[in-house]
């Protein structure tokens, strides 16, 4: 527990370094810290693209399994050149989409696996953030979510999506302009 607490205070860069060159115990503890620090973010990303909780949990496991494989036994593995979330985001998204496609092939034939789950797929008891952004194209909805829900910088978003920074800026401008026109969010801009 003491080791875990000490590890939890380290930066992502230091934890990645320990995963690369630390002893077995250090690497294991460092990876555990990375997992605890970022698992909720990965889960939230997964839940934006799948329609069932089990698939989301599978996406979380597959994402961190992928990260684990970035640290070979001999060291000299992953080098962080940006925030770790810029790596985790596309991996989590792609894993979730793959799982959703698998579920769609075996289950609901009406489910479009490339789209975010519609409001109709969610529980009636849930307020749906997707309904607030419904009407935005998927790529613009993603930008707004990354920027204002996940608090990612524009540069981090550009890195995570593999887009030029200028493209992210212009698309975000356009996304907010579109958002202002949506009836379900109009009151937020007027108050």
């Amino acid at each position, binding site marked *: 527990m003491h080791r875990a607490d000490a590890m939890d205070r380290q930066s992502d860069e230091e934890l990645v370094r320990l995963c690369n060159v630390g*002893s*077995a115990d250090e*690497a*294991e503890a460092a*990876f*555990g810290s990375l*997992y*605890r620090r970022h*698992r*909720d973010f990965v*889960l*939230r990303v997964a*839940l934006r693209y799948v329609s069932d*909780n*089990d698939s*989301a*949990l*599978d996406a*979380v*496991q597959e994402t*961190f*399994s992928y990260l*684990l*494989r970035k*640290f*070979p*036994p001999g060291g000299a593995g992953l080098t962080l050149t940006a925030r770790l979330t810029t790596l985790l985001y596309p991996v989590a998204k792609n894993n979730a989409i793959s799982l959703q496609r698998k579920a769609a092939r075996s289950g609901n034939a009406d489910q479009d696996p490339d789209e975010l789950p519609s409001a109709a797929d969610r*529980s009636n008891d*849930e*307020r*749906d*953030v*997707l309904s*607030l*952004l419904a009407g935005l194209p998927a790529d613009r909805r993603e930008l*707004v*979510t990354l*920027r*204002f*829900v996940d*608090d*990612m*910088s*524009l*540069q*981090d978003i550009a890195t995570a999506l593999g887009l030029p920074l200028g493209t992210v*800026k212009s698309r*975000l*401008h356009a996304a*907010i302009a579109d*958002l202002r026109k949506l009836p379900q*969010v109009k009151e*937020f*801009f007027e*108050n």
Partner: protein
Amino acid sequence: MERPTDNDNEPQLPATLIEALKAEDQPTALITSRADRALEAQAAAHFAARRSTARDWRPAWYAAAAAAAVALLLVVPREPSINEGIGAQDVFYADVDASGRIDIADVLAVARSGRATQPDIDAFAARVVTLSPPGTAR
């Protein structure tokens, strides 16, 4: 959490809208302690190859026994895989330490035997810790 700002001209959303969006993005699923332990076990198996024999607390005969058991696996045809599609490199999926079940201890035994490559170890570990329904090998 303060959102990093890239420049003064960056478009903003009303704070109330941001609050509403964040409130709705809360996860509907919980990551169980079982899922946490599964990842931790997978990490332990993955990094086990870094343990030096000098620090290995197991008796000297253990590595030899594990290596012999792994060698036997390569000769004896394996049982049909329980979780098809997990990976092709799952020849080590077996009760190496004869504990009566296939679990992470078998993964560690394979790792310490030195007979498996890292991809084999990872595939074995991934298979063991896959969140399979109760009753199946774990």
